[in-house]
């Protein structure tokens, strides 16, 4: 209720200036995104104009080329399949493990949690080679499954850590009250705990989805034709003597749309998801 005044934040007009200043900083910060979206509607001639062009007649040419000649639908489908499967598996395994770590007495639970966190210290470049060799021998190379397995391994520790954070925040009193109300374990999970942490699960799913969707190195090494993902395809717009800027713009714009929607739908929860783990 109280209008909190931090030291030095004088009342009145200075506050307005600060907001305008922040708005300026944010818009400037987002300019590269605006610029690439704009580029996606430019013809090659406008793209290569020496003086940047801000006003022009938009064209869908790049999008037509992207889905026509380049057949961008295929990698898009590949990415969707791999990423969706990864997300589902990560959330299921993650919820089980996080529930045990966050709300149950597990022998050595703390060590397990720390071990999972330490998996982050492993650079992907150090283990991509073994996977490459192993997948070649087992026929998992350039398959959805091969990529999904790797992505689950990479995202699971982080997801467990996040879900655990959300689960720890649910007060134990809530379980106990529900138990006294005569609910069983499963009913408590389904009717009490899950609804409370649902936003946390959604945020974890989004993080997993986004990071798996954006992943490049593993996909570059472990796929070639059949299971090639969006980032790998986009990186191939860099050609020996030119870069297909129009296609870059169009593909970047397509990737941006779902992110924008999700970020705005779940803005409050995403803030919490980002700060969880670090602030606690």
């Amino acid at each position, binding site marked *: 209720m*109280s209008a909190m005044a931090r030291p030095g934040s004088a*009342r009145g007009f200075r506050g307005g200036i600060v907001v305008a200043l922040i708005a300026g900083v944010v818009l400037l910060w987002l300019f590269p995104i605006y610029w690439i979206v704009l580029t996606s509607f430019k013809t090659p001639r406008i793209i290569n104009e020496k003086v940047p062009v801000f006003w022009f007649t938009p064209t869908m040419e790049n999008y037509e080329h992207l889905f026509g000649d380049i057949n961008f639908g295929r990698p898009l489908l590949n990415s969707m399949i791999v990423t969706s499967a990864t997300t589902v598996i990560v959330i299921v395994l993650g919820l089980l493990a996080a529930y045990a770590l966050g709300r149950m007495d597990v022998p050595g639970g703390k060590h397990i949690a720390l071990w999972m966190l330490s998996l982050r210290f492993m650079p992907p470049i150090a283990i991509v080679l073994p996977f490459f060799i192993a997948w070649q021998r087992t026929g998992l190379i350039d398959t959805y499954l091969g990529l999904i397995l790797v992505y689950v391994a990479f995202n699971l520790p982080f997801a467990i850590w996040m879900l655990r954070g959300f689960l720890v925040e649910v007060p134990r009193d809530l379980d106990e009250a529900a138990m006294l109300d005569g609910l069983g374990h499963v009913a408590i999970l389904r009717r009490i705990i899950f609804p409370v942490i649902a936003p946390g699960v959604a945020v974890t799913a989004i993080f997993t989805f986004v990071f798996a969707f954006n992943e490049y190195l593993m996909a570059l090494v472990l796929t070639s034709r059949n299971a090639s993902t969006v980032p790998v395809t986009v990186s191939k717009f860099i050609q020996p003597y030119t870069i297909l800027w129009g296609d870059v713009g169009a593909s970047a714009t397509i990737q941006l749309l779902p992110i924008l929607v999700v970020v705005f739908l779940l803005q409050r929860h995403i803030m919490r998801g980002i700060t969880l783990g670090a602030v606690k």
Partner: protein
Amino acid sequence: MTIVLTDVVKTYGAQTPAVRGITLEIQDGEFFTLLGPSGCGKTTTLRMIAGLESVTSGAIVLRGRDVTDVPARDRDVAMVFQSYALYPHMTVRDNLGLNLQVRRISKKEVRERIEQVARMLQLEGLLDRKPGQLSGGQRQRVALGRAVIRRPNVFLMDEPLSNLDLKLREETRTELKKLHESLRITTVYVTHDQSEALVLSDRIGVMNDGELLQVGNPHEVYSRPADVFVARFIGSPSINIFAGSIRGNGAKPAVEVVGPGDGTGALTRPIDLGWTVTPPSGQVLLGVRPEDLVIHRSAAPDRLRAVVEFVQPMGSVSYAVLRIPDGDGLLPDREHIMAAIGPDETIPHGTVVWLDIRGDRFCLFNSQSGMALTKA
């Protein structure tokens, strides 16, 4: 005059005002308490004096200087917060010394003043600890020390005792009183605990609903409340309120509370002709504190019939909880009446007793407005 508030108003957005025009003068060296229920605007008023809250309209003057638009840090006021707000990452020493350091007072003097305050508040052994390593009472003393060390114009205290357990609270209350007696720094104290206010204050300002209802010393607000709200808020157990009426009776008017039916008697007291603001209807509210309501075992002309429900022992005194059968209309406040009795006296449930008022220890209020009727 240390603090002068002139018609101070605080409004948040389009809502009803949190503080609706408070005018108040607080004297040099005075211990002044703002007392009221939660949400009455007392903390907001305190925060406006501190400069932590802007003033919507009106003016605040500290020691002759209009500080209405002066930021908090330039007002030279010190505050003890309800949560103490100690800096968790600093030692007790640094918590005490921060203000002095910021004001560029010499290191030597800072050290001396820290020692002095530590002695005064028994913090000597704790100076190198951090707040997390202190007990609640110790934290409270550090918070107090942080204010004392500054020798400020004004001390502001926002329910500083409310986080302590009962026993410690009473001890600290005494300490606080002693501290004020020795330093005599003007203090504005906010609390919702009327007994705390009565014990500590030179004067009390009772607030409700953003308004200052009465300002007076503890005796005044207790025995001559300005209205029914103040009468009810101060004193524990709270005052008994009866619905009564003024009877003309020629040259000798009286107030009476007539029992519900034959043989139930009436409380009657003559009143001076000097009583002002007699409502035209003749209806009044009669307030009698539990210790001023006398219980008799036998009927008499000026006594009101009541029935004992049970007795509440409180140690040094007991209270009889009474009911007037069919007397709903007589008690606009609640169903029960409380009357003090001897600490070892017991009266069985259902006993019929007769009530009387001790001397002229009662007050009268306008039955519509609730304002006290006062002698001219």
